């Protein structure tokens, strides 16, 4: 082994302890609090994803009501340089699952002031769920560079009373 100074040894022990605390904190917040990240949901073909078809919800993107006033699915199609739809209205207290994909290049999807933050990769569907409690507006923004019009790519969620 190598000779290590006494103070340095103590410091190393504290460092390792600190990292162990981080490990535990990561585990607890990820599994106990149920932090969600996008995981493989569905593979799609970006070349035909915008084509309306009975089994393709992205052919007619928009909000689907599952339980009135309570539960919704939102299908959003990203393309240069806009989201379809650009605006979504839901009542306060509703839980919305977002399904987002791209028909061209990579995009991003982040609803500010929420935990909804996803990469949008053509060929994959990104999915996350959030509950909107208060009536207010949220911006959703493309955060991945997608060409010269990237800065214009955004939309709004309006949570109604």
């Amino acid at each position, binding site marked *: 082994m190598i000779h290590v100074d006494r103070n340095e040894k103590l410091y*190393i022990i504290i460092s390792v302890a*600190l990292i162990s605390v981080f490990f535990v904190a990561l585990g607890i917040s990820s599994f106990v609090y149920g932090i969600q*990240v996008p995981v493989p949901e569905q593979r799609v073909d970006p*070349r035909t994803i915008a084509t309306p078809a009975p089994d393709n919800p992205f052919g007619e993107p928009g909000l689907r009501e599952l339980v009135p006033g309570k539960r919704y699915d939102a299908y959003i199609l990203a393309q240069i340089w806009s989201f379809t739809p650009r605006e979504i209205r839901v009542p306060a207290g509703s839980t919305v699952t977002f399904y987002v994909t791209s028909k*061209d290049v*990579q995009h991003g999807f982040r609803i500010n002031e929420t935990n909804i*933050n996803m990469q949008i990769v*053509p060929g*994959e569907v990104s999915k996350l769920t959030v509950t909107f409690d208060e009536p207010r507006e949220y911006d959703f923004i493309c955060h991945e560079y997608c060409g010269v019009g990237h800065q214009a790519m955004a939309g709004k969620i309006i949570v109604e009373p």
Partner: protein
Amino acid sequence: MFARENKLTAWYLGVAMTALFIGGFFGPLQKLEYVGINFYTTLNKIGIASYYQGLTLHAVLNALVWTTFFIVGFFTFAITHSLKKELTHPKINLISLIVMIIGLIMAAIPILMNLATVLFTFYPPMKANPFFYIGLVLVVVGSWIGGWGFYLTYIAWRKENPGVRTPLIALGSLITMVLWQIATLGVATELLVLVIPWSFGLVEGTDPQLARTFFWFTGHPLVYFWLLPAYVSWYGMLPKQAGGKLFSEPLARLVFWLFLALSVPVGLHHQYLDPGVPAGWKFMHALLTYSLFLPSMLTAFNVVASLEIGARNNGGTGLLSWVRALPWGDPSYTAQNLAMILFVFGGIGGLTNSSYNLNLAVHNTSWVPGHFHLTVGSAVTLTFFGIAYWLVPKLSGKPLWNRKVALVQAWTWFAGMLLMGNGLHILGLNFGVPRRTMIGAAPYAADAWTPMLIEAAIGGIILGISGLLFYSNMLGTVLSKKRLEAPIEMPVAEPYESEPAPAWLDSWKPWLAVTVLLILVAYGPVLVNMIANANMTSPGFKVW
């Protein structure tokens, strides 16, 4: 002795600095655009078509060209001088330089012609001109060739010096080159297999998710390829410059080996929010990323203890007031010490990014460029400036043009990065301001962002001025007619304790085995699965 090595180093450094000059030029313009001062309509007249073409130049020239050329050049110098042995096959290293320059030109032309406005991540299915990708491959392959020249020299040194411990500066540099060669297998595969045939139209579609995964296989160890040369200087040279010795030489070696083993199997922490990667693999990479915190913690203690030895040798006393006895009048030292201070903030922010859950709050916001301007833009770049303050006089045989200007340069870089870093971090965390976006033209930009946008812009302007001070000093030195009165030697820190490091800290096989094993465990199954199920369905798009 070393005439050829010094000349090669000078060439690498010259190309690196030229790239940073052009790339850096766009930095302040980007921050001015944030506050509504848009120079891009003027730049249209000299052929810069958009904010994003400028941003591509800024990112590729600074993050890829400045770093890679500086590092290979610095290592050409450091390895040979540390081993006290000239390159055994200097032609190989000359070929490395030539291939890298050809690659740089080949990649630069499409960017300048607005045929590759794809930023430095070039995520498919955005499709650039094929020569952009081929140029990047040549820069990487050129740097590999340089590495082979180093290894051959090292093998020859080893034969002449059996049983002798490899000097720390040479060992750290060689480990960094090996790390780079393993890491770049990812981006090389992405470019050669997926992207280049597709950009030529030989195949119709590509798989963007798979391409991203190959990219980030390289993308995270890339940051250690940038950082470890700074560590070589902080451990191997800076204690000497401070008048001290390296506190724990064996632990310094251990740090380099740990970075080799742990740098690659962590890349998925850049892809926490990717839809095509299973959560279990993301979580595993999160834990492995946190293990990388250990070698950086070890470095903090060891380097500060080494500097303290120097300060006390210089007459420093007290629990903390010894800090005043560090050589703050020496610009090379000062730049590197300030770089370390900024790295503390960069490192803490990095823990946030690599956290599986906190990353949700900051992913792809301006927090991220805030973070990497404190790391590669400060810890690395300001250290390289500090190295240049002794290395360029050494190579040119001329004294540094103006030490005071160099000191002001180091402090203004520090101040500018603090302001810009703070502004960008807060904008990302509090407001979700997206990264690499023309914010001045974004319809969703809010009034509440303005104070921090202004702070970031002021930081950017100070950095621009600091950059000009650096270049005036470099030009002033090289063009001066004065000659050095006494020759400059590479500063080499002696170990504080005379006992040599144990053999397992100077032994490649076990560490390489651990490295390969960790990569296979952390990437093997997930990557095999993604390759087996590849969806080559994305045609290319030119979106600029």
